[in-house]
């Protein structure tokens, strides 16, 4: 049943444009490779106070890579609250976080619908875990706060075709951005936190052929690498040296223990870089 409260368009299904094969080959026949050092994250832009009517808000943009057609991540976050919970809800001794992550319909290669899909809910729960460790929750009993993130543009290569299943890796990058931007918006809203939490991603990639030795890079862009074996998204509190959320995906053997620790270490490295930007941006608003 179609949603009658929106304008749904024609009854027949529409097809996203299919491009001619030769053009695609022409555009992305070579995996360009990474233009940054393995331990360098992309530059980012963070600004708080983009939505004046919200309690707190922030906007985060990742630099798009040099290749055209690859979009940088663009996120906008608003925080509403803390405010009292509705009467019907049960007593809560601490603040109730509710997180919403929503892709704009024009954010990704495929047009997104207006209803939240499972991956967006998944991102929401990961974000909630990451932030819960940072907020001093028992300062606000019986109250709730809404954290809403709109993904204005996802991290996707428009030119490359869909063979690699990039979406799962893209979600990691989106989540790390979400954590950083939500942390900035929480600070803008004046909600007490033990520290500013920031997200970072590290990945184990294979750049040349099946047999080459995999390397670990931070802040991976899937289209820059031939194959991603595993990735790890970390939410990290630098002054406390605590990890509030860890999300690993991939296919690695269980015996390679130091590989996992290295991935986490590099994730923390990426997260501290993001944290520097975050702190600098928050200091700027104070000045």
């Amino acid at each position, binding site marked *: 049943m179609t949603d009658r*409260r929106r304008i749904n*368009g024609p009854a027949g299904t529409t097809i996203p444009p299919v491009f001619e094969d030769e053009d695609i080959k022409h555009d992305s026949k070579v995996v360009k490779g990474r233009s940054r050092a393995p331990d360098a994250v992309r530059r980012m832009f963070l600004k708080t106070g983009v939505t004046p009517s919200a309690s707190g808000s922030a906007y985060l943009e990742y630099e798009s890579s040099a290749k055209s057609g690859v979009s940088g991540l663009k996120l906008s976050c608003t925080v509403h609250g803390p405010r009292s919970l509705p009467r019907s809800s049960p007593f809560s001794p601490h603040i109730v976080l509710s997180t919403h992550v929503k892709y*704009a319909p024009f954010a*990704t290669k495929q047009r997104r619908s207006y209803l939240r899909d499972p991956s967006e809910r998944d991102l929401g729960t990961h974000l909630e875990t990451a932030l819960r460790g940072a907020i001093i929750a028992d300062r606000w009993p019986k109250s709730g706060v809404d954290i809403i993130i709109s993904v204005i543009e996802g991290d996707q290569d428009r030119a490359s075709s869909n063979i690699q299943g990039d979406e799962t890796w893209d979600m990691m990058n989106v989540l790390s951005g979400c954590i950083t931007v939500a942390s900035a918006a929480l600070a803008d809203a004046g909600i007490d936190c033990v520290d500013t939490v920031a997200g970072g991603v590290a990945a184990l990639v294979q750049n040349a052929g099946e047999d080459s030795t995999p390397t670990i890079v931070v802040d991976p862009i899937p289209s820059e690498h031939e194959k991603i074996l595993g990735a790890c998204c970390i939410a990290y509190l630098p002054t406390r040296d605590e990890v509030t959320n860890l999300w690993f995906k991939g296919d690695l053997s269980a015996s390679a223990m130091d590989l996992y620790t290295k991935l986490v270490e590099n994730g923390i490295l990426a997260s501290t870089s993001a944290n520097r930007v975050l702190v600098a941006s928050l200091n700027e608003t104070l000045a």
Partner: protein
Amino acid sequence: MATLTSAGEQPPAQPSLTFTRPVFAKLSPHPYLLHTLSPSDPSTTPSSRTNGRKPNEARKIQINTSSLSQAHGSALVRTGDTTVICGVRGEILPVAAIPQFRENKNRKYDDAGTLEEKGRKELKEYDLLVPNIELATGCAPQFLPGVPPTTLVQTVSTRVYSLLHSTGLVDVEGLRIWYTHTRGGDGDKMEGVEGEEAHEEEDEELEPEIKAYWVLYIDLLFVSFDGNPFDAAWAAVVAALKDTKLPAARWDPDREMVVCSGKEEQKKKLNVRGLPVASSAAVFLEKEHAEEREGDRHWILLDPDRQEEGLCNEVITMVVDCNGQDGELRIRSIEKQGGTVLGRELIRGFAGVAEERWKEVVAAMQ
């Protein structure tokens, strides 16, 4: 306080009650707005609104285009604290998927006027424009996600939809994907040219036919909301459509599907007719809860913000376009609701205000 007085300290003689403007405006919005609009000495302090603007002063508008890479066209519009992003994305609707498709055969015998009329009908019948608005981004405290689309969202979307069709902004020719039949496997280009020149002699087979349409999904996302959503949304739609470039598409008879060329230089700009601009104003009455009576004062506030919208019942939206021949002012739509203040004279006067606004917005678009 009790400890202070018992200690014999002097309480402050005059409890200072000086609030800043925003605090006053929040505590009692209606009297405060009335007070600033009708100052006791108009010669020194001009009549102004809570936000410091004059009654017929709109917020400055800023328009950025082509900032999104996944959409075919995009625009970001910012007026004061209202920020809206519009992304236009084309998707292909094959003719086979349209239930009641009938091609207009005697197209070329029509004159330009009826052709345009038929084009508009085509656009509407096959529903090729799909505007939608998303407000539930926390852009204001009353718009939180997790709820179905509110009435406001639905009305604004519908108004954008009907205005898109009534103004005929998009030329349907840019959305058609043609295919010319060829008899043999060879020389299709040659025959195509011949068919153009001498279609009278050729049989039906050589006539180009429509195989598919582009459907434009026009999605609007409010990043920040501070009143007057329709003007901002409409400006964003017009700017994004002007920015839209669709890839060159052709029908591939072997695969029976439409394929597009990925080359940047083959992209075609959408043909956008005219440049309509919407201006809204709200009518502020002297009495807060009473019906309008003869002799009561009222003010027409152009481009109302969120607080003013809450205080006003009567709203007028006028869409004007001065883009035609010799820059003549043309009114494309008038909508007015709730109240009896705006009569014929006032609406006529408002057309002048809308014309001024048109110039501002068009200057921002360039």
